[in-house]
């Protein structure tokens, strides 16, 4: 469960995040939707405690990232915008490294990797060095290493970026399975269809502020539009960045 209240972050004169407020519940997929540069990545970075907020409050299962950074990092699984893998290590070694950094025991790590290999369909390449992996394979390894310690809360920054249709389908399937297992999932995206297909709750962010917040039905109702696409355009006030 994530609670964000009145979050602010500025870089020099640029106000990247300017009063963002939303909640992400357990057993739900929350989508942060907005054009490029709207402040989604900055918001997520403050959630996973890599950036300190200038102002505002964040609680993840009651913990504050500015004060309990280590504790929060243990409960979070993060697939950030940067998903660099170590190309001289195999997929398995990449994932195991993160397990060790989480202080997991070797037996627990290998059992968990077996499990993730099956779930994410990685058997073909789990013992290959990640040099030359396809975009889809990379994302799978990045997700697996983020999930190795079985985090309750999952944050994903543009998870389907660069994926083909089949990989995207598999990814969506996996994200839904996380929700069904009771995890709180927050993902950011600039692709409207992704939110429509996946998210239980939608937070529309534009220019560092929340333009609208609610379920798909609520957004349709509030905007008075027939289709989600029209509703987004109306709520954001422009078509910029919404056409996938």
């Amino acid at each position: 469960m994530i609670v964000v209240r009145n979050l602010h972050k500025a870089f020099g004169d640029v106000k990247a995040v300017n009063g963002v407020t939303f909640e992400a519940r357990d057993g739900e997929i929350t989508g942060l939707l907005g054009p490029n540069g709207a402040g989604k990545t900055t918001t997520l970075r403050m959630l996973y405690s890599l950036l300190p907020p200038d102002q505002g409050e964040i609680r993840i299962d009651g913990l504050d990232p500015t004060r309990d950074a280590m504790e929060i990092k243990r409960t979070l699984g993060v697939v950030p915008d940067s998903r660099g893998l170590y190309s001289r290590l195999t997929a398995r070694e990449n994932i195991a490294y993160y397990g060790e950094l989480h202080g997991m025991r070797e037996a627990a790590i290998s059992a968990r990797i077996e499990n993730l290999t099956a779930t994410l369909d990685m058997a073909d390449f789990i013992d290959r060095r990640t040099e030359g992996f396809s975009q889809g394979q990379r994302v799978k390894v990045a997700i697996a290493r983020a999930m190795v310690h079985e985090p309750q809360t999952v944050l994903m920054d543009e998870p389907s970026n660069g994926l083909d249709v089949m990989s995207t389908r598999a990814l969506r399937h996996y994200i839904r399975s996380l929700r069904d297992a009771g995890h709180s999932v927050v993902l950011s995206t600039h692709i409207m269809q992704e939110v429509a297909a996946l998210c239980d709750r939608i937070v529309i962010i534009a220019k560092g502020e929340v333009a609208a917040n609610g379920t798909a039905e609520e957004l349709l109702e509030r905007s008075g539009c027939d289709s989600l696409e029209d509703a987004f355009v109306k709520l954001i006030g422009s078509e910029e960045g919404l056409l996938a």
Partner: protein
Amino acid sequence: MKGLITVFRKEVRENIRDRRALFNSLLLGPLLFPLLFVGMMWFLESAEKERAEKTLELPVIGAEYAPSLIRFLEQQGAKIQPEPENPEEMVRSQEVPVVIRILPEFPEKWNEGLPAPIEVISDPSRQESNAPIRRVKGLLYGYGQQIGSLRLQLRGVSPQLASPIMIKDVDLSTAKSRAILAVIFLPYVLMITAFTGATHLAMDTTAGEKERKSLEPLLINPVPRWQIMTGKMLTTTVFAMASLALTLVSFRIVLPYMPVGAFGMDLTLGLGTLLKILLTVSPVAILAAALLTLLASFAKSYREAQSYMGLVILIPMIPSLIFMANPIKAETWMMNIPLFSQNLLIGEIIRGETVALGWYGMSIASTLAIGLVLAVLAANLYNRPKLIFSSS
């Protein structure tokens, strides 16, 4: 500390698989420098020998004025060449290293018993002509001595009267202390090796990690950043030390192939000496790892980091260059200066001197102190978000 060890183990494993890391740290320094050294020595030696053994071809102007001198020169093995048209030009264009000119007044002065003039035309600023010039002057001087003695004897004077003093050389230098070149060259190579051994790792684990976009996800793990950075610096230090140790071993192996007499007699680098030298330079590996990591952490990419490194590699060269230009006697206070103290200490060790334990202690402590200060700075650098995200 578990996180630190995990990072260390992973970096070692990853870099052992990296050909570039192995080449830079474990091959380049340890192989290149000793080979370069041996090659240089052989080249110097053989060039010197060739010049010493070659028949001296000597163009003479005015040979007819001093036929007995010419005979003397020929007896001594010089090959007298006919009079050249433009001797100055010949020397200037390096056609011959030296030409002698016997002036027309030579016979007159000679017969009067006055110093008879001979010009030696040469360009001593050319290194390679020094040997022939020395030989020609030595021959002329010898001839002069011989004739001088004869003249004195003819007048019933003992030639010894003309030599009021006799100089005897009492040489106290040991074979090892003659190893000047090694004393300068080995510390120089070791200082540079500590830095070259650390460079690739320092860049790859910081700027490289940023460039591959794996730094951000790494820092989301529940491990304090100072532990992550220290794990990386530890890997860099270990590679730099391995590089130093291998360089020493490799020197040990090539020494027997040195030309005889390059260092006086025996510079064998026994195991004890090797260990002493390694102990002396090890703190430099830590210093280098910390300094290079600190600098590379500011770079956005491997390439950018590389552009800083060109300047940094000058740092370990400075003390050696000072030392080469102005060899000074080691004194206690100098042991507090990192890099400089190692230069002096290695010199003392090679020369076979007994080094006071206090000197080792001061050198190690001062170098470690500065290394640790830099390491603490580097370890906390990624607490600044600006440096983490500067690539995106």
